[in-house]
C-alpha cells in the first residue's frame, strides 16, 4: 500500500495486491485482470463510486503492461480518508503511486488534474468542494507522463470546446509539477536503502 498526495485536504489511501491468483470466470487468457475498488469515507459504495471505479480501471489498464502477467488478478483498493474537492484526480494520483510502489510493470506514469470553470469563464485548478459547487463546469483529466497525452477526460456541467481546450492545456502544464513530485518521492525512498 502507499500513502496519498492531497490537493488541500483531500486524501485517499491506495493498496495494490497482485499479480495474484484469479477466480475462474474473471481469468483473462492473455493479460492481467485489473479490478479497482473505491470505498467512500462513509456509507456503502454506490453508483458514483462504481462509475469512478470504471474510469480509474480504464486509465490504469492503458498504462499497465498486463500482457506480462496473463491469467492473474491485480486488485487496486482506494479508501477515501477525506474529501475536500478534486476527489477523482486525487484517486488517480493515489492509484498511480500505488502501482508504482508495488513494482508492477508500467509503460508510463499518469496523474489526475481537476479544472473548474467559474461562471465568468476563469479556470481554477484543483478546486475545493465549494468551488466545484459554484462552478459552471468541472473537468477532470488523466495525463500520461510520456508525451502529456490525455488518457481519460470526464466533465460535469456545460462548457464550450475552446474552454475545454484551455482547461486541457492548463492541466497539461500542471501535470509537470505532479510528475516531479513522483520523482522526488521515489528518490527519497531509494536514498534510504
Amino acid at each position, binding site marked *: 500500500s502507499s500513502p496519498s498526495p492531497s490537493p488541500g485536504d483531500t486524501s485517499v489511501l491506495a493498496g495494490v495486491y497482485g499479480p495474484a491468483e484469479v477466480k475462474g470466470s474473471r481469468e483473462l487468457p492473455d493479460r492481467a485482470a485489473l479490478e479497482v475498488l473505491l470505498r467512500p469515507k462513509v456509507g456503502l459504495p454506490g453508483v458514483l463510486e462504481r462509475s469512478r471505479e470504471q474510469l480509474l480501471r480504464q486509465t490504469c489498464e492503458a498504462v499497465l503492461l498486463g500482457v*506480462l502477467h496473463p491469467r492473474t488478478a491485480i486488485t487496486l483498493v482506494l479508501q477515501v480518508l477525506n474529501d475536500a474537492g478534486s476527489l477523482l484526480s486525487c484517486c488517480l494520483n493515489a492509484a498511480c503511486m500505488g502501482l*508504482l510502489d508495488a*513494482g508492477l*510493470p508500467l509503460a508510463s*506514469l499518469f496523474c489526475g488534474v481537476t479544472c473548474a470553470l467559474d461562471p465568468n469563464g476563469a479556470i481554477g485548478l484543483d478546486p475545493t468542494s465549494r468551488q466545484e459547487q459554484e462552478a459552471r463546469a468541472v473537468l477532470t483529466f488523466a495525463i500520461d507522463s510520456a508525451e*502529456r497525452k490525455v488518457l481519460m477526460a470526464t466533465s460535469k456541467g456545460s462548457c464550450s470546446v475552446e474552454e475545454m481546450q484551455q482547461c486541457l492545456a492548463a492541466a497539461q502544464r500542471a501535470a509537470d509539477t505532479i510528475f516531479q513530485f513522483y520523482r522526488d518521492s521515489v528518490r527519497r525512498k531509494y536514498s534510504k536503502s
Partner: protein
Amino acid sequence: MAAGRGTAAEACVGQVVLPGDVLLLPARPDEDGERLRLGAGAAPRGRLLCGPGLRRCAAGLLVTKCGLLRHRQAGGGATAAGGAYWVDSQQKRYVPVKGDHVIGIVTAKAGDVFKLDVGGSEQASLSYLAFEGATKRNRPNVQVGDLIYGQFLVANKDMEPEMVCIDSSGRSSGMGIIGEDGFLFKVSLGLIRKLLAPKCEIIQELSQLYPFELVLGMNGRIWVKAKTVQQTLIIVNILEACEYMTAEQRKQALAKFSGN
C-alpha cells in the same frame, strides 16, 4: 513534446528512473550500413542484455519499474557495446523466474506431483522423481505442510511453474526438504538480494552472535533455526528489522543482544 524524450543510458546509471523514461543506447560503431567490412578484423559485437524493469522499444530501452538503474560491463570488454542494464527495484510480491532458488510450502499431493505455494500467482508443481536418489520404488517422504528448497526449471508467464530439487547433474546441492523446527517468515525481495550478496555484513554480524541455520528463498521467504526458540526469534526480529535500520542502528541492536 519530443524534447526530453530519452537520455543516454550511461548518464542514468546509479540514479532513480521512473516508468516511461526512455534510455538511449550508444550508437554502435560498427553499425554503418553503407560500408562493407573487408578483412578479418571482426570487432567483438557485444550483445546488450535487457534485465528486469526494462523493455526494448524503438528508440532504446523503456523503463517499466521505478528504481535505481544498474549496469554491468561485459567481461573483458573495452567497448560499452556489451554488458547488461537492469533496474534495482523494491518489491514484495514474487514473480517466478527460471533458475531462482525458492522456498515452497507443500499444499497438495496429486498422484506423482506435489503442488507448492511459492508466493506467486500460481502454485508450482514438483515431481516426486526430482529429488536426489529418488526412484519409483524409493519415494521421498514429503507431507502436506513441509518446506521445500528448490529451483525453478520452468517459469514463464504462459506456463505453470515447475520446480526441481536437483541440479543439471543430478545432485541435490543443498536443495530438498527443509528439516523440522525452525521459523519461516517473509521479507521484501530487496532485502533477500542484499543478504545474498557476497560477504554480506548482516549475516557476518549475526553469525558472531549465535550459531544458526539459514535458508534464503528468492521469493522473499527466510527459514531460520537456532539452538533455542528464543535465539531463533531474536534472529528473526533482527532480520525483519534490517530492512528499515541503518548499519549503525543494527550494530547497536546486536551489541545489546551479545551481552545476554
